[in-house]
């Protein structure tokens, strides 16, 4: 049990540092076992060190940066033991355009390992999908309508109507 846990912990940790390096352009991310009691019971702590800075409390990170840490952790676990499908409901809401594009590429990269269902308002994220479903509410009832991404002009709001 101890051996299995440590092996998993170490591979999640190395995935996590890789992900943080990619998402925060050069930052150092690390998961640490708290020095307390037995390895089989102790908790885990995350630390992030941005480029040019000392290690800081996660509390000081910005809204978007906190989302990036969550995304990094999600993909670190996915690489070890993917679930058959992932549902991501507007995980890009706090991201700037660069990071939204990066998230889209990350989802695309792992979509051969597992299925993704992504709810988003950001064209930079939805353009990676092979199937696009529009949902709209008419007369108080939700219905599904087809949406063609090609028809979605970049500078106009996304039209989803019956």
């Amino acid at each position: 049990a101890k051996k299995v846990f440590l092996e998993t912990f170490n591979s999640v940790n190395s995935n996590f540092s890789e992900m943080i390096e990619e998402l925060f352009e050069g930052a150092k991310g690390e998961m640490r076992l708290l020095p307390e009691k037995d390895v089989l019971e102790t908790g885990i702590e995350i630390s992030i060190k941005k480029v040019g800075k000392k290690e800081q409390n996660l509390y000081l990170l910005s809204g978007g940066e906190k989302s990036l840490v969550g995304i990094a952790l999600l993909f670190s676990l996915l690489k070890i033991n993917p679930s058959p499908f992932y549902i991501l409901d507007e995980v890009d809401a706090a991201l700037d355009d660069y990071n939204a594009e990066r998230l889209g590429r990350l989802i695309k990269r792992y979509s051969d390992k597992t299925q993704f269902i992504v709810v988003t308002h950001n064209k930079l994220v939805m353009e990676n999908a092979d199937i696009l479903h529009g949902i709209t509410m008419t007369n108080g009832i939700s219905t599904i309508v087809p949406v063609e991404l090609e028809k979605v002009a970049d500078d106009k709001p996304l039209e989803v109507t019956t």
Partner: protein
Amino acid sequence: MKLKKIIIDGFKSFGRPVSINISENITAIVGPNGSGKSNVVDAIRWVFGEHSYKNLRTVKKNDILFSGSNGTSASNRAYVKLIFEDDGKEIDVSREMLRDGKNIYMLNGEVVRLKDLMDFFAGTGAGKEFYSIIAQGQIDKIVNATPEELRKLIEEAA
């Protein structure tokens, strides 16, 4: 094991039956604010036995049932079915709830207990809280997880 289709009828804002095809790779669900996108996510959680009002964003039990609109009366049953494919074989999983609160779970057409459903999925990792369904507004909350919660995540992945 791949998810192929989601069927929703009478659950939350789905007053009429809808069927959603799911790609093997990436499926995007888009649409205006308040149109029902997160209700689809709730529907999938619900089939896996989710019973917490908070996670289903409801206040009372019958909030799960379509509450009616102009010209369409409220539903008396909420029904969600997920259709998977595994090595060419189709696998159907569904949950149904009636106004009296009775829940019926089915696996390939047979009524089963929720526990049987969870055993069936246990090996696959589907439905596991954290790393397969991220609800709206949750992705940035992970940094607030306690050391014990983070440990539990790693153990689930082991």
